[in-house]
């Protein structure tokens, strides 16, 4: 940790910029930097875009940019919420899905798909809406079950999360077995691979992202204090219960919103915080903004891989994050075994 030459913040920022560029340029049809520069210049100067540039323009503004934005929002939300949950529960295995966001979202999506909506705009939006409601309802149920009076003991929360998660998971499996038509799309969604096109999803996620991550970014000091446990945190003057409610509420909303359009993407909320902790130590005032940058960069790179490894077919990005993420995670843990980095 000592003798650090480059501030980790700059590393994360450069990584994010590189990942953004990569995500905009690479795909089944690759654009060159030159094409991009010309399209952007033409748009900025308001001149007519002609001939060969029109294709590049469509790819850039209707496909790549919105997708890049959605993936970046999702990745940063998952990583920041992962960091917050790990800090809140003082548990290195906590991630945004812990208290039912993922299983609830999955159940919501599968119910919506099994109702056989038509393939029009409304039908497309019905799935994210249903998964969002599923996620929020499930989290509410977990919190209600775990509550004792006005307090929310961590152990109760984790146990209620496990119970409700497996229940909704079983419901999802049951519905999938019974359903006939839309099975494929539902499974792709559950694997984290149904990023919808266009700017609509980006605009739909953005308010939740802004509110959720905006509030979580201010929680660094509070999470630092909470690392000493609830009792000491309160003796140090932190209103522990209120802080916990706020963190759970806003991160569940942000995660649910992101997940509803991109499907369930595992490991981002787990790997990114741990990687950053090794890089920068246990101070949550640093970890939170770094998770925002790092989570976006990580998921963007995974999404690029998902687009190119089997072109023209696209893999669900959740498969990439798990395939690449799990071994990487194990490698990191083995390397860091001697470091007292967990806090």
């Amino acid at each position: 940790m000592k003798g650090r030459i480059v501030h980790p913040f700059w590393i994360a920022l450069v990584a994010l910029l590189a990942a953004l560029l990569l995500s905009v340029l690479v795909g089944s049809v690759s654009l060159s930097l030159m094409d991009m520069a010309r399209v952007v210049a033409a748009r900025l100067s308001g001149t007519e875009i002609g001939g060969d540039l029109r294709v590049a323009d469509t790819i850039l503004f209707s496909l790549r940019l919105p997708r890049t934005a959605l993936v970046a929002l999702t990745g940063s939300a998952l990583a920041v919420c992962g960091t917050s949950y790990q800090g809140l529960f003082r548990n290195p295995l906590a991630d945004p899905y812990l208290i039912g966001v993922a299983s609830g979202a999955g159940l919501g999506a599968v119910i919506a798909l099994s109702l056989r909506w038509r393939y029009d705009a409304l039908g497309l939006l019905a799935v994210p809406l249903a998964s969002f409601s599923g996620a929020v309802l499930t989290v509410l149920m977990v919190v209600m079950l775990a509550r004792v009076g006005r307090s929310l003991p961590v152990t109760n929360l984790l146990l209620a999360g496990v119970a409700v998660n497996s229940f909704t998971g079983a419901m999802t499996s049951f519905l999938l077995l019974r359903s006939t038509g839309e099975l494929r799309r539902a499974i792709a969604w559950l694997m984290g691979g149904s990023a919808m096109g266009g700017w609509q999803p980006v605009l739909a996620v953005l308010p939740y992202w802004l509110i959720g991550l905006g509030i979580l970014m201010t929680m660094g000091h509070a999470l630092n204090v909470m690392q000493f446990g609830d009792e000491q945190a309160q003796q140090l003057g932190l209103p522990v219960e209120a802080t916990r409610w706020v963190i759970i509420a806003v991160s569940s909303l942000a995660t649910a919103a992101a997940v509803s359009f991109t499907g369930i993407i595992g490991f981002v909320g787990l790997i990114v915080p741990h990687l950053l902790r090794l890089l920068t130590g246990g101070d949550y005032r640093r970890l939170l903004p770094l998770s925002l940058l790092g989570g976006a960069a990580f998921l963007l790179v995974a999404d690029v891989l998902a687009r190119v490894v089997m072109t023209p077919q696209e893999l669900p990005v959740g498969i990439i994050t798990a395939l690449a993420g799990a071994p990487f995670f194990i490698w990191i843990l083995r390397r860091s075994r001697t470091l007292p980095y967990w806090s």
Partner: protein
Amino acid sequence: MLEVSHLTVGYGSKPVLKDVSFRLADGEILAVIGPNGAGKSTLVRALSGILPPQCGSIRYNGRDLCSLSVQERARMIAVVPQARNLPAGFTAWQVVSLGRTPYLNWFGQLSPADEELVREAMRRTDTAHLAERLVGELSGGELQRLLLARALVQATPVMLLDEPTTHLDLQYQIGLLNRVVEVVRQPISGNGNGKPHSPAALVVLHDLNLVARYADRVLLMVDGCVRSCGTVSDVLRPAMLSEAFGVPLEVMRSPNGKYPLVVPLMA
């Protein structure tokens, strides 16, 4: 002056502390002793606001502490817990500076005055040289001194220490208690909003000989009730101790004649 009167506290409906009353003056060290399960730790948790009282009151200079917000209360009472399960990835400096939390805004930014206070507390507890070290690398004695420093920067009129010497070697037990006496007798320079003044210290201790050596007064608890409260020689009497702890005990004088010495009698 901390005044606890008729305090009854419990988990659920079963009271663990029953009608506990005592007074603790500024600059005084009160040792709380008693067998396991007597309610010593519960007393610390009740005074620091973790457990709300069912009856009775806790006042400092007439001010009711139970009506204060969590933040205001942390400006009145600081706790030195046992050094267990501390965040391994924090530096010693971070641990101590978090003691300023009740005075900081939501973002926890330290002012230069805060930093000076943290430095002074770390000097006073002999932890200044550890500032950049990670908690995971420190020994039990060093961690316990860090927690004392953290309580010092809280700059409270009352300090509670919950078995601070448990798990420490004898030299660290004595080192720690010497520092507690120092900070009670010569208080830290204050927090910028008040003049320096001597905190009142309540220390839960198991070792009765350390009690005899360091305490100004002693509170003996049995079964959640106050059995006796007074000076060291008032409370450390063979009959009372033997009854409270359930083993025959003898009280002798130390070889230099200054302190009582408590010795269990073998049957």
